[in-house]
């Protein structure tokens, strides 16, 4: 509880005083409400003080006359206590009933057996009642309109910014001079930037209709920082000319001012567009990094060209599909459980590949490339035979679907956002594994000097298998992420293998940070080029760029240096 909010309450009190008939009870209630706000510890005693008001108001609500009801609403509104708001909201929503036998007002929520009842006054649970036992408290249209406004006003002072935001939006739906004044008052004291903006928007759009030139200029002032489609439309509309060349906005100053405001808004829109491109680029980069990072281990650290890497991702994606088939009612859990499951499955397949094939081919990278390509064909056909050659759709759980609407011009899709976060998590985890664990130490030792590591008693064969398993497992995890943004089919892996290699080679073989940076820069480059060149051409351009880049710097962005790298 802050002093500001108390002050604002007082201000509202004054505002109401000006607009409404003074009423002793109401004044008392207001005072009480202020006291209640000031001294939360005293709520109990205040509740008892409000008791009388509630009883009276609820009785009037139950009366048949609409005038009585209207007065009761005013009475309740004056209390400004949460309970009063709950009752009014229930009334507006048609959830306020009279329990016929006891002649008592209750709030009911509809369930199969009838209504689940709560005592309107005390909030006590009253159990379930049959529909016939209750009678709805009705409202007529004009009452509903005024109630909506009243509630909006009440909520305008709510503690939560979100509630205030809703209130502003509710008021905006049916605006009049009275509520405009209210909003103006609120704007002065409002601390939350979001709510401030919303109020400015409502005020500005309304004021723009004013006949007074200064009012309109002031409206543009209010609107010039708004990223809102309607603002853009309205400001543009000011510049419109009718058939006779007459401007919609007759005043040239206002037109020019609006033009200037539009320029400013458009500049902001460009920033939003840039942010969006950046986000899309980052999220594409995250996908690339996820796809490439397992490869960065097997290719970068171990020097193995694993052409079946894409198929290991595909296995991860199919694991997600199978998990969802197993638990169709818990998509979220299925997805989360898929992560370890995909890791284990892909890692095991990877270890099998290493033990069964690759270890016979150490020191013959081109042969390894061919043999693992054979494996990739094998895995593809296996999946095709088991799951059919058609794409399988993997559903997204609720929290991963939809968008994060920041404003009219900027919205980010949740799935891409989560994948970005996920990518960072996987990367951090991998870095920790390589840096902190015994396995990581052994992996690095074997990568740097195999013979020496062997001489020091490191079981190189086991380390090889585990490293390869680790890289493959991460490919599986990447597959889980991919299943959320692309079709899961037998060709999923092939689509990513060239890209993944490009990322690793571009970043510099043997350098995880290089892979991260390369993935993100390629992702962003792709998205920057897309609007200019189109998606396919953008991809081609990026490929050509990498091909040329490798010619210039054959060892990537972050080359390994030293004598070992020379040979």
């Amino acid at each position: 509880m802050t002093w500001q909010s108390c002050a604002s309450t007082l201000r509202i009190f004054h505002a109401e005083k000006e607009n409404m008939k003074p009423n002793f009870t109401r004044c008392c209630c207001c005072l009480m409400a202020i006291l209640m706000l000031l001294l939360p510890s005293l709520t109990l005693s205040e509740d008892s003080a409000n008791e009388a008001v509630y009883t009276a108001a609820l009785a009037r609500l139950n009366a048949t006359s609409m005038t009585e009801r209207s007065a009761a609403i005013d009475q309740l509104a004056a209390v400004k206590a949460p309970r009063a708001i709950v009752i009014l909201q229930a009334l507006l929503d048609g959830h306020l009933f009279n329990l016929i036998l006891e002649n008592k007002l209750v709030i009911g929520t509809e369930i199969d057996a009838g209504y689940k009842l709560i005592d309107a006054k005390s909030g006590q649970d009253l159990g379930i009642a049959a529909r016939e036992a209750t009678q709805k408290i009705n409202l007529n249209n004009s009452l509903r309109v005024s109630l909506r406004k009243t509630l909006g006003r009440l909520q305008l002072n709510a503690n939560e910014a979100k509630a205030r935001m809703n209130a502003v939006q509710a008021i905006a739906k049916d605006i009049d001079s009275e509520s405009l004044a209210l909003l103006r008052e609120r704007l002065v004291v409002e601390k939350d930037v979001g709510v401030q903006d919303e109020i400015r928007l409502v005020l500005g759009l309304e004021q723009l209709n004013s006949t007074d030139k200064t009012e309109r200029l002031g409206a543009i002032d209010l609107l010039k920082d708004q990223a809102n489609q309607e603002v853009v439309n309205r400001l543009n509309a000011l510049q419109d000319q009718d058939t006779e060349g007459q401007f919609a906005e007759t005043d040239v100053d206002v037109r020019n001012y609006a033009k200037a405001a539009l320029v400013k808004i458009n500049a902001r829109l460009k920033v939003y567009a840039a942010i969006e491109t950046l986000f899309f680029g980052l999220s594409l980069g995250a996908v690339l990094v996820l796809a490439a990072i397992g490869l960065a281990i097997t290719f970068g650290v171990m020097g193995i060209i694993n052409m079946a890497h894409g198929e290991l991702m595909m296995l991860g994606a199919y694991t997600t599909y199978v998990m969802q088939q197993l638990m169709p009612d818990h998509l979220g859990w299925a997805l989360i459980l898929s992560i370890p499951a995909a890791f284990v499955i892909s890692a095991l397949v990877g270890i099998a590949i290493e033990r069964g094939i690759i270890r016979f081919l150490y020191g013959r990278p081109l042969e390894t490339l061919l043999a693992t390509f054979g494996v990739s064909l094998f895995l593809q056909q296996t999946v095709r035979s088991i799951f059919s050659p058609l794409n399988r759709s993997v559903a997204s759980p609720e929290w991963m679907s939809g968008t994060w609407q920041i404003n009219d011009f900027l919205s980010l899709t949740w799935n891409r956002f989560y994948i970005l976060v996920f990518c960072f998590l996987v990367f951090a985890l991998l870095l920790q594994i390589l840096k902190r664990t015994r396995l990581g130490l052994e992996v690095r030792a074997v990568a740097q000097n195999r013979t020496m590591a062997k001489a020091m008693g490191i079981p190189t064969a086991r380390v090889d298998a585990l490293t390869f398993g680790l890289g493959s497992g991460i490919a599986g995890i990447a597959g889980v992420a991919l299943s959320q943004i692309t079709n899961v089919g037998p060709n999923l892996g092939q689509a990513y293998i060239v890209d993944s290699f490009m990322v690793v080679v571009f970043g510099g073989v043997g350098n995880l940070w290089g892979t991260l940076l390369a993935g993100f820069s390629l992702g962003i480059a792709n998205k920057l080029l897309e609007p200019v060149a189109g998606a396919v051409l953008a991809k081609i351009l990026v490929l050509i760029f990498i091909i040329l880049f490798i010619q210039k710097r054959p060892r990537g962005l972050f080359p390994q240096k030293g004598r070992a790298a020379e040979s």
Partner: protein
Amino acid sequence: MLATLYKQDKLAIGLLGCIALISVLVPVCNLLFPVDSVMHFSAYTVSIMGKYLTFALLGLSLDLIWGYCGILALGQGAFFALGGYAMGMYLMRQIGNRSVYGNPLLPDFMVFLNWTELPWYWLGFDHFGFAALMVLVVPGLLAFVFGWLAFRSRVTGVYLSIITQALTYALLLAFFRNEMGFGGNNGLTDFKDILGFNIQSEAVRGSLLMVSGLVLIGAFMASRWVMLSKLGRVVTAVRDQESRVRFLGYRVEHFKLWVFVLSAMLAGIAGALYVPQVGIINPSEFSPLNSLEIVIWVAIGGRGTLYGAIVGAVLVNYAKTLLTGWAPEIWLFFLGATFILVTIFLPDGLVGFWQRHKHEQKQ
């Protein structure tokens, strides 16, 4: 020349004989004997044999660069496809107003895209000579530019393999685009005439097979001559000890480039012979998988032997024809298993295995 070859290399002469026999016997029997005769070879046999021979040429081209120069090029299919497109463009221009839309100048797909004139790079392709030149120049030029950049900056080993794969992948994406003016997804097809003769007629099909056989024999002899020259020895030396060759004063990148361009041109010729025999060329020829399949032909046959590539190409494609006809899903299992088994158990391929076997027998 054949006599000296016979003395030096009985295997090669046997193989060339087989090719010559097939490319003469199959079309002749197809034309001479009636359909119900045992001696008759069907039109299908003619076209499939022609296909095998162009694939053999393609395999041969890869063997030059991989087997002798040690560069595992995973983009050989791109040169093949480019040669094929050059020939396809000639054949497209020959259709004239017999197309569905009946436009005398523009191929159907351009009319469909509302194009009003032929793009500049289609000009000249109505002349067979020009198209034939482009079959060599386009793949050769691409190989030259790409190779010049890559070899000069000493991109080697798997890096080179990966960027050649990226090259063909980029071309795949590019040729899928309708705006490129190569028929997009569908590619070029519905050919009517070649050099004024009906491309569907058995005589033309037979002749194409003969030409393919002839070109293959010629390419084999030429490749063999190159690889037996001092240049061949330098190239082999580059494969085994690149830096040593450099310290002997050879510009290694020039040698690689020369072989790479030669190999690309041969692949282009193979593509140009392939297209009229199968009647279509589309972007899928650029797919990285196709290029990898070429590698497996050469690996199975035995790299660095020239005839290994031919044997491998024919064997694998024969197996492909059999398996895809019998049980299509088996084919990829078979291909995958072949990749694995050959690299582990048969590193020198069938020819290498056979040579070693003979060597042991002698001893």
